[in-house]
């Protein structure tokens, strides 16, 4: 039950504060921050206790079955939580970092109009992340997966009066929802092939062909959530949110959720050479993409985001190669370091000057980069490609968004032909984000 308390506490705090707010009460800042600190301190202690008891008992996992969420005929939705050697590090990472972010934000967002909104969403995010990492079935993973997604989007649009964050949020939402089709279909296929999506008693065995299909669908979702190629375009848009949420989402927890999903389903991937190779290829491309693009980014947060992407690409390669502990250690270390870097990003110039002062003058250049060995035309081409973020957004827009918008407008015309009393037109396209918009000629102001 301790595991249930750890997972449920942030959800309960979210439900309580949001309901009270809807009914007209706004909680004071001090109450919110203190409740947050207490909840995550206790949660950290509880996860520590769970880890210790798991180690002391010599068990491989603690499973908590809460029965079936709902049952229809032969289909059941089991509510089972699982704390094992894979999930416990992620649970610990989540409660520690969310607690730290909560503490940091008390000062960072002090007197911000969206203070309580940030904290309420932070608790919802923590709940979603803890559900992902403690879920005992793919069905339950979807629950947390979607919650993390929607929280992420709502926090990107935190500064809701500015156009950039709002457009960025829509862009991220589009990619998330499109890629979520992967995990939803994979969960259905698990029911279809193995008659269960539960992995409390170990991952169900699939044939090689079935594993390929399930693995590729899971990879689609993992790639979307972890901003892997070709879905990396949303990452810079996500940097529009407040720095603490950027740190926890895109430096630490959310961005690694895709890697966790692949680690959790690694036995399925190992059954299928095709799926494993696909993971390796996507990871490699992402690592290269992140390295190149990150070097042309002009702002600190985006630069850090692409640096995180490059590391995450390497993590995907490690997972595709069948390694288990190395990617887990890689993720834990990476999440900690990247969170610190994100949180320090607003003070980067100050830090830079401090380093210079400590060194007693300007630091020397680090030296020549390997790309200087390339011919100049190639370097220019690479620079342009990196500056346009690998043309991924353009490809996505021309290959998917534009045709979809054209189709939608065509269908609207079809609806109107000779039949409609609707005399207005839909020729003016909707204001999708910059990257998604059609032939938009109007300003969004």
């Amino acid at each position, binding site marked *: 039950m301790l595991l249930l308390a750890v997972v449920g506490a942030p959800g309960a705090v979210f*439900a309580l504060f*949001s*309901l009270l707010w*809807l*009914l*007209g009460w706004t909680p004071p800042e001090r109450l919110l921050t203190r409740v947050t600190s207490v909840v995550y301190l206790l949660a950290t202690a509880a996860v520590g206790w769970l880890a210790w008891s798991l180690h002391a008992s010599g068990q491989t996992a603690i499973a908590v079955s809460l029965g*079936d*969420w*709902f049952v*229809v*005929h*032969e*289909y059941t*939705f089991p509510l089972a939580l699982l704390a094992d050697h894979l999930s416990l590090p992620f649970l610990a990472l989540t409660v520690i970092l969310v607690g730290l972010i909560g503490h940091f934000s008390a000062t960072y967002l002090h007197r911000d109009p969206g203070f309580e909104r940030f904290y309420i969403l932070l608790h919802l995010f923590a709940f979603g992340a803890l559900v992902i990492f403690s879920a005992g079935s793919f*069905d339950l993973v979807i*629950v947390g997966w*979607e*919650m993390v997604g*929607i929280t992420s989007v709502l926090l990107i*649009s935190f500064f*809701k*009066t*500015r*156009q950039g964050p*709002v457009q960025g*949020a*829509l862009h991220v*939402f589009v990619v998330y*929802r*499109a890629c*979520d*089709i992967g995990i*939803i*279909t994979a969960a*259905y296929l698990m*029911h*279809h092939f193995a008659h269960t999506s539960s992995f409390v008693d170990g991952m169900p065995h699939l044939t090689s062909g079935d594993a390929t299909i399930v693995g590729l669908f899971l990879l689609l979702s993992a790639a979307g959530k972890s901003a892997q190629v070709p879905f990396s375009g949303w990452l810079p848009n996500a940097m529009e949110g407040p720095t603490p949420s950027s740190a926890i989402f895109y430096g630490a927890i959310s961005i690694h959720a895709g890697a966790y999903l692949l680690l959790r389903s690694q036995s399925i991937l190992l059954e299928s050479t095709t799926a494993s190779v696909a993971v390796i290829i996507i990871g490699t491309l992402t690592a290269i993409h992140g390295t190149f693009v990150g070097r042309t980014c002009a702002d600190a947060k985006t630069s850090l985001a692409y640096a995180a992407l490059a590391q995450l690409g390497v993590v995907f390669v490690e997972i595709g190669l069948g390694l288990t502990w190395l990617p887990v250690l890689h993720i834990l270390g990476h999440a900690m370091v990247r969170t610190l870097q994100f949180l320090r990003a607003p003070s980067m110039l100050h830090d830079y000057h401090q380093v210079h002062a400590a060194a007693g003058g300007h630091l020397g250049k680090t030296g020549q980069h390997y790309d200087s060995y390339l011919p100049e035309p190639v370097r220019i081409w690479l620079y342009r490609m990196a500056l346009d973020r690998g043309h991924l957004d353009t490809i996505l827009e021309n290959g998917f968004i534009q045709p*979809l*918008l054209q*189709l*939608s*407008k065509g*269908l*609207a015309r079809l*609806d109107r032909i000779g*039949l*409609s*009393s*609707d005399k*207005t037109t*839909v020729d*003016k*396209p*909707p*204001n*999708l984000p910059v990257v998604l918009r*059609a032939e938009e000629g*109007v300003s*969004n*102001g």
Partner: protein
Amino acid sequence: MADLSFPLITAAVGLPLIAAAVAFSNDSRARLAGIIGAAGATLCSAKILLEVNAAPGLRLAEPWAFGLFTADSLNATFLLLYSLLTLGIVILAPRRDTSARITGATLLVLAATLSAYGADNLIVLGAAWVLSAVPFIVGPFTGTWRPRAGLAASCLALVAAIGIIAQSAQTAGDLEPFSLSSLQGHNYGGSAAFALLLIAIVFRKGIFPAHAWIEDAAEAGPVLPVCLFINGHLGGFLLARVVIPDFPLVSLGAFPILSDLALLTALYAAIRAVAETRARRILALLVLSQSACILAGLESATQEGITGALVHIIVVSVATTGLFSVLRLMEVRFGRTFTADHYLGLGEYTPRLAVFFVVCGLALVGLPGTLGFCSEDLLIHGTLSSHPQIGLLLPVATAMNAVSLFRLFSKLFLGKPRGSIQGITDALPRERWVLASIVVFIVAAGLMPSQIVTLRTNAAQAISRLW
């Protein structure tokens, strides 16, 4: 067949009718009459649901009602749901939407829809179906010609089908040719009646290619009554109550095609919504898309799909009532209809309405933690089981609906407000309590869905047994 303890369905139908008469005659007391009428219907419906739950698997007849009405696990939930929706709308409707004519006609629609749900007689069902559409064809909710034509077509098709079924039953020597209970598997009316019933369903539910009237009605008609009308889901109800019982084998054969058509409609409406800019039309397209998912679930002929469809009716009804209500409240506050051309930043003035909107919207597209997740999960499993290839359209359509909905939310509530507007109030207490009830229901039922799912599973089993 057991009996209800009292003619509760007659009372549930009669109270709104009396209230409608009062509302028509007294403009200043119209809202009060509406609240009393809808609340009375709600109490009767709640009692019906309790009695039906106490006698699982049975169809309860009304005492002293000449076999006109019955209650069972299929219609008891609909009776309560629809009464509650009407009550909520009457309470939160802006003052300008509670005139004598509008409130009276709304109560008339309530009474007619409850009659259709409770009917155990083809004539009652047909009359209720027509009466519920009358205010939209010739009454105070009349809009442009296409809604009127669509609804008239559905009414004519149903009346013709009923005539053919009754004639066929009489020819076959059935002593009760109009009784719904005696339809079981007789194929009365043959392919002509089957085709006419399907035409009635297609027009009423707005299945492609007869979908456009719903958009027009939402755009040009009074938005709250239109929302209430669409959420009657009488098309789906007719399928479960008449088509499947009368034509179990024919329908089983035809359902793969119909289900594919419904899924295509879901995708069609979802694609249409992507580039649509008018707020009312976007919501109408989302309702169309999600309603088509309901039909696809019913026609999947799997327990999961049918249960998912029956749960999804609740989700779509409640969530879209919340969405249309918030939109209407915003329109009244700002004195205009909205388009998703620019970021309007209205959330700055109405933060709580914004939250109600986004929660209802996300429930509609299956956010975990809401009842929508549960129904979508069952629908996806049902449709993918019965149509593995085309079933994949359902999650695709839902994903696109989610994008359209979030886009609409962004455009309406996010961004920088243009100029300074004074005196705009956030949700008033009566609006806040109704909308908060909707949100609490959606979330509480989403966290503990087993009760509702079990309730609907009983109805789904009753439908499945017909095959």
